[in-house]
């Protein structure tokens, strides 16, 4: 395989998983919602994109539709989220993802069952090589990543972000301080799901096919490792985690071609992932990057004034 193509492919994957990591970071890192069903919303985005693109809907509408439908399911899942304790919510959403995957797998009238369906490229450049196609994808993916990142940053550094963190820290206290926690949880899950839906659409359109095997629960756990490793409640951390874990994932994928092991090498990868989670949680529970404090214009200027006063005093 063309080595440059390999690198470009890696860049696309980092972008798509970066969006997923940002969305989970919003839910788990900031608002404390343990969404163990990320892959469900990824799947909804991907299948919506695939099905709509087959009937000739332009790619941007496919993406928006995927995000909207995914957000609607996010809202749906937020209803039990208000009644269930965090750990039960995690189990409920986890099974939701598996149920969706099994539905598209066994109900072949929806999207070809196990065989999946193919997706036509978003922007077809006549006579372009595969390399050009990938470059177009990079542009599209990183444009979406940038938008998601900017939204996540703006929210994190606003009074809204303050409330998200407050709900994470102590939802009863947040409620007693006038914050409608049900509403905040629903909004955050909708927003996170919309982002995952966009990532799914991009994934479908890049690979140019969708099939149930692409949406195993492992995808969710991979995104979780990204967020835990990079640092929850830090958007840069989420992106850093996406970069590192994708590199690790791909790196071990190459390495396994050259290894002879007594076990299946793809299982080795899962074992390494598991070990990585344990190592991070044991030795660096806050992740590589620490939680970023809320930064607003007014807060920053007060902080500056105070450091000036202190400087004069000493």
């Amino acid at each position: 395989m063309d080595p440059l193509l390999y690198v470009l492919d890696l860049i696309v994957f980092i972008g798509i998983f970066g969006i997923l990591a940002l969305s989970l970071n919003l839910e788990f890192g900031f608002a404390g919602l343990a969404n163990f069903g990320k892959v469900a919303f990824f799947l909804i985005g991907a299948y919506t994109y695939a099905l709509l693109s087959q009937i000739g809907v332009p790619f941007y509408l496919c993406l928006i539709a995927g995000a909207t439908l995914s957000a609607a399911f996010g809202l749906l899942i937020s209803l039990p989220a208000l009644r269930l304790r965090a750990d039960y919510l995690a189990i409920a959403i986890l099974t939701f993802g598996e149920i969706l995957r099994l539905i598209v797998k066994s109900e072949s009238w929806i999207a070809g069952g196990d065989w999946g369906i193919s997706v036509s490229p978003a922007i077809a450049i006549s006579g372009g090589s595969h390399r050009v196609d990938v470059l177009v994808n990079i542009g599209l993916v990183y444009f979406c990543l940038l938008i998601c990142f900017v939204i996540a940053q703006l929210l994190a550094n606003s009074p809204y972000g303050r409330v998200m963190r407050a709900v994470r820290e102590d939802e009863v206290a947040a409620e007693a301080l006038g914050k409608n926690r049900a509403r905040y949880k629903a909004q955050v899950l909708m927003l996170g799901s919309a982002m995952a839906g966009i990532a799914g659409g991009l994934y479908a359109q890049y690979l140019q096919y969708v099939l149930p095997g692409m949406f195993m629960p492992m995808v969710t756990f991979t995104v979780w490792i990204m967020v835990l490793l990079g640092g929850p409640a830090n958007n840069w951390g989420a992106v850093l985690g996406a970069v590192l874990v994708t590199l690790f994932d791909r790196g071990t994928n190459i390495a396994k071609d050259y290894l002879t092991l007594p076990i299946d090498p793809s299982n080795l990868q899962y074992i390494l992932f598991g070990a990585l989670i344990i190592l991070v949680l044991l030795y660096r529970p806050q992740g590589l990057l620490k939680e970023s404090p809320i930064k607003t214009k007014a807060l920053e200027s007060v902080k500056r004034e105070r450091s000036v006063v202190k400087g004069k005093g000493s």
Partner: protein
Amino acid sequence: MEEGLLRIREVSKHFGGVYAVNGVSLDVKEGGICGLVGPNGSGKSTLFNTILGIHRPDGGNIYFNGNCINCLAPHQIYALGLVNAFQLPRLFYQMSVLDNMLVAARGQQGDKLLNSLFLRRKWQEQEKGLIEEALEILELMELDKWAFSLAGELSGGQRKLLEVARALMAKPTLLLLDEPAAGINPVLGRKMFQKLEDLSRNGTTFFIVEHRLEILFEFASWIYVMDRGKTVVGGEPEDISEEPAFYRAYLGEE
């Protein structure tokens, strides 16, 4: 009877077979500090939680400013101006002291999803004012030096102070305080009550549970005594301190 800011009528709350609050009726009049005393387990905190909507009353009615608030959620009760500070501080420990304060402000522009993204100038302008108010209250509680530290780094007494400070940030009409002076050094405790008294002249009414009776009796204008889920007596502090029922509640039957 009608002029009470907070009117509680025959309110009951039971957990299983235990009546923690059993047909309590009382009035908190506007202005000043109203105290609620009673031995441990007499139902004071349960009564507070019921007023705040954390527990639903099993019977009776609660009126605030003439409106029945039995069926409202805690955040709706808060929006009406009825705010509390928890007995055991429930701070947002991974957030700075100042951010803890700012969360509590009422009527914020930027705590809604779309406003936070699209009305940035508006809430930024508002936040400047809120920060000033927050720092003023923190100064009062001698916490301003820690404004940018994490709340989790504060000592036990400071956490207590921040809990009260955060409730004050909401500019409440009625503030329920559950043992605000417990665990705070006596000098600062008295100072806090003096400050509350000042605030009570500017339109905030306080309803306070406190075991430090000497402080409470000095500042309160009205005291209710609770025992075994019921209010046994209510009156001005001077009268209460001569009331046999008050001693019976604390010391038991002779």
